[in-house]
């Protein structure tokens, strides 16, 4: 089966590249092995949140100028313009965000911390300055028996910042039905029950009855709107006090929404999505990738002029390690293992910066992959599979995913 471009990996990076290329009129296919790590997303995307020492960054665009020479941001032609394009691409997919690349804002984590971030989906609770909380008194309103929203941690975190917090809980009979299988009282199932039964207005009534006007902010778990933002927007409108959502523990409703809306946009542009399939082999001739084989399309080769590898890092199985090697799983392209001996891949203290986190595929200055030391002229890599960055310590995952994807797409279109 022939396409103009084949993208391997259906997460944030793969979909970003896919949308950009489909918008440019290309016939794009995307092969995805299961669902992506967006399902653990916070509803926010980071560009660069922390410096080498772990201090919060206020202006990510300025700070990016200082990243070390191995960081994938060095391969971007114009970070500022790509960051603007990323925000617009999300918007065209129906995902409205607040934030910009010249000044981070801070999101509230499910356990009550404040984290610097770049773009937040509209409706998510954010503050402009971590040292100056905009709220005097907050009502933290959970759903009865919903365990993935640790309110005591959240309240403690906010109180540390000088905010007065009251913890409240509301429920509806339909939501309590979910408790029949306690393991299934999950954010995404709550979202489905609210959506299927048109419960938004009833839920708003409940919230209004426990959180009156003496609060200047109501914070709620992000459990509405899995496939679009209709219900989540509507709920905030119906609550009389200003109200916002805080990310829950996974599965993440805002993350699933982002995934769903990006995929919807990609498909609407004519993109072809190979669901739940896996690239098993690359067919290389000299330094060109001619096609790929997949687990399910036996007998069919997927062929195209250009390819993008966006399969993610260890968590998404784009990279794997056996006892002595780190390898790339789909095509067997070269991996930068930082020249480290096996014993030094990891640090004993799990909170330390882990060296293995910076491992990834090697690319040339145009983001093209290599095989046995030779550059593959039509195979690009994008997203967290790239070597040279630690998204946990530096908070740069969303930016690396989207900006390198857009750069790879640009490199192909050129």
């Amino acid at each position, binding site marked *: 089966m022939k396409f103009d471009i084949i993208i391997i990996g259906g997460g944030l990076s793969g979909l970003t590249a896919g949308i950009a290329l489909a918008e440019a009129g290309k016939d794009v296919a995307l092969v995805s092995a*299961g*669902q992506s790590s967006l399902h653990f997303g916070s509803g926010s995307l980071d560009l660069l949140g922390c410096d080498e020492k772990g201090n919060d960054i206020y202006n990510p665009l300025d700070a990016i100028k200082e990243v070390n020479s191995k960081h994938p941001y060095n391969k971007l032609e114009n970070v500022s313009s790509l960051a603007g394009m990323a925000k617009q691409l999300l918007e065209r997919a129906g995902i409205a965000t607040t934030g910009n690349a010249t000044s981070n804002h801070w999101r509230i984590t499910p356990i009550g911390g404040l984290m610097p971030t770049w773009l937040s989906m509209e409706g998510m609770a954010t503050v402009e300055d971590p040292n100056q909380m905009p709220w005097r008194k907050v009502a933290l309103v959970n759903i009865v028996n919903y365990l993935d929203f640790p309110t005591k941690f959240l309240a403690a975190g906010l109180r540390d910042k000088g905010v007065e917090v009251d913890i409240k809980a509301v429920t509806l009979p339909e939501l309590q039905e979910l408790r*029949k*299988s306690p*393991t299934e009282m999950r954010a*995404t199932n709550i979202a489905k029950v609210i959506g299927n039964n048109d419960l938004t207005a009833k839920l708003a009534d409940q919230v209004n009855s426990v959180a009156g006007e003496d609060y200047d902010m109501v914070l709620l778990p992000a459990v509405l709107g899995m496939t679009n933002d209709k219900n989540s927007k509507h709920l905030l409108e119906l609550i009389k006090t200003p109200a916002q959502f805080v990310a829950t523990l996974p599965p993440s409703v805002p993350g*699933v929404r982002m995934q769903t809306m990006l995929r919807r946009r990609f498909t609407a542009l004519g993109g072809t999505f190979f669901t739940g399939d896996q690239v098993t082999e690359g067919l290389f001739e000299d330094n060109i990738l001619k096609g790929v084989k997949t687990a*399910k399309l036996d007998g069919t080769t997927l062929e195209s002029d250009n390819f993008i590898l966006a399969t993610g890092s260890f968590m998404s199985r784009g990279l794997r390690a056996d006892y002595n090697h780190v390898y790339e799983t789909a095509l067997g392209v070269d991996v930068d293992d930082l020249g480290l001996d096996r014993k030094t891949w990891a640090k004993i203290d799990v909170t330390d910066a882990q060296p293995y986190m910076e491992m990834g595929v090697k690319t040339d200055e145009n983001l093209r992959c290599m095989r046995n030391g030779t550059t593959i002229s039509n195979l690009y890599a994008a997203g967290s599979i790239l070597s040279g960055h630690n998204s946990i310590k530096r908070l740069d995952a969303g930016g690396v995913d989207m900006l390198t994807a857009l750069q790879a797409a640009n490199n192909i279109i050129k």
Partner: protein
Amino acid sequence: MANETQTQNVSVNNFEQCLKCSICTVYCPVSAVSPEYPGPKQAGPDAERYRLKNKEFFDDALKMCLNCKRCEVACPNDVHIGDIIQAARIKYNTHRPKLRDMMLANTDFVGTMASPFAAIANPILKLKPMKAVLHGVMAIDKHRTFPDYSSRKFESWFKKNAASEQEKFNKHVSYFHGCYVNYNYPQLGMDFVKVMNAVGYGVHLLEKEKCCGVALIANGMPKQAKRQGEVNMTSMRKAIAKGHQVLTTSSTCTFTMRDEYDHLLGIDNHDVRDSISLATRFLFQLIEKGEIKLAFREDYHKRVAYHSACHMERMGWAPYSTRLLRMIPDIDFVMLESQCCGISGTYGFKKENYERSQAIGKGLFDQIKEVTPDCVATDCETCKWQIEMSTGTPVMNPISIIAEALDVETTRKLNKLD
């Protein structure tokens, strides 16, 4: 420290690879509408650990699983969650199937009995008193209408009208028509023969064809399913020995015979599996290789919305059908978001499942109503019943759309048959 590490996973159905990430639960069509269902993660890999210790941990709620396999498609770690659940039902369920379930599952037997009486059976099955009896006595939901039985079976039509023509072609395929084409909708089989003949392939029936068994598996009759599967495998081996591919026009029959035979029934199909294919896939592959060509009528316009049936999704083959359809020049093609329609074969016919079945399909029905296509295209026959009943939009198999749009004369010329 050990010098070696285990790099291969050896657990059955990959169940030890489960990270408990819960992504399967996000895509389970049942767990959100039926809170008493434990959800795929809990019903599958989690509870399997307990069941391995003691069969008393088997939970009857597992029969709520549709076997749609959407959990497996969503799983980022290739855990065969649906297989774990179905295998547990086969292994641990001690209830004998009810009469109703036996009737629903024995599509062959019931079809054979009903076909000669189709003229009487069809209107009777639509009568309100009859539906009330089925609802009350048999627990077949009164909202459902049985798909019409055809007064003439596809096999009879084929033997009388088509069989003698087939030998004159140079290339040949065998056709596993399935129960639906044989008893309910011979037109799809006729469309298939029309398309295959137009591109130069003779069509042959298998020496013996039994229902693929998907309904037997779902209704707790794995032994009968296995017996029928073995008959199909024997017939297919003979066809394959003659150099035939075995083609179907049903995604579920295909999936069952290629994957469920081995995974759930323990039928050895390794020598047959690769020769079983869906007609759309076969055609697409031949067109790509340049071995056949299709020509379409210039006056053919249609707004078509494609629905990815669950087992089509699991096989990963939807792009074969969609790219084939998109070859029709003036087709206005819309890809629907992949969601379960809720029928899942015989599941939605049962009184206890009716409401759940409609709640599951609601998202898809809403999409279809919004898109307002001339027809919905899908590769699964039971999705057709469900979507037609629930939206009023006609549903066609992609092969029927190709047959309708095909310019037979030009196609025959392009394939050098005239």
